[in-house]
């Protein structure tokens, strides 16, 4: 930790720190629940589809779409609450994650056509984007410290 960071951390009140930590935990919990709902819905939709129960499968597909939309709306709400510096960090991380996800999917598509690589499930783009985004966000915010 740099002197700047230490100074900043020391002068923040305990109540303020607790409030920030609580907000961060709540946000992470919301996102984790929706991400888990998405993955479970995809799993069960696939399972019911395999067993020929298309009505249940359609219900779980709808649940997956709702979970994804929920994740998206949560993110938009969070983004709108950020100040200009935080938005700059987020925007850079999103650009890197978006570019990374598109590049990976396109590269895999080429490998599928030319090398007969196994199909890449399109629904995995969302979790893959999230992973690249988390890494990019960490890297971008570290650059400003």
């Amino acid at each position, binding site marked *: 930790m740099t002197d700047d960071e230490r*100074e900043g951390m020391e002068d923040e009140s305990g109540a303020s720190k607790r409030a920030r930590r609580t907000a961060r935990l709540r946000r992470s919990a919301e996102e984790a629940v929706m991400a888990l709902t998405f993955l479970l819905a995809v799993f069960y939709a696939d399972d019911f589809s395999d067993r020929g129960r298309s009505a249940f499968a359609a219900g779980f597909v709808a649940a997956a779409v709702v979970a994804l939309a929920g994740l998206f709306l949560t993110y938009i709400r969070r983004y709108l609450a950020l100040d200009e*510096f935080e938005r700059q960090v987020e925007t850079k991380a999103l650009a890197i994650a978006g570019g990374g996800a598109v590049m990976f999917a396109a590269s895999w598509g080429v490998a599928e056509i030319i090398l007969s690589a196994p199909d890449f499930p399109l629904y995995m783009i969302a979790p893959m984007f999230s992973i690249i985004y988390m890494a990019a966000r960490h890297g971008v915010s570290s650059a400003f410290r």
Partner: protein
Amino acid sequence: MNNHLRTLRGERGWSQARLAELAGVSRQTIQALESGKYDPSLPLAFKLAALFKRRIEDIFEP
């Protein structure tokens, strides 16, 4: 861009959190500004200048 935010803040005995609260931004933003790694928008520069009762060019140097 260089700036005198840390000095001005110190003169007033404000913490980074306090200045962030007054300016309506996060503490991380103040930290990034003070370290010179982030240049503020014009509205934020005006807000900081008003808080310190200085001109923008007295706080920020190109």
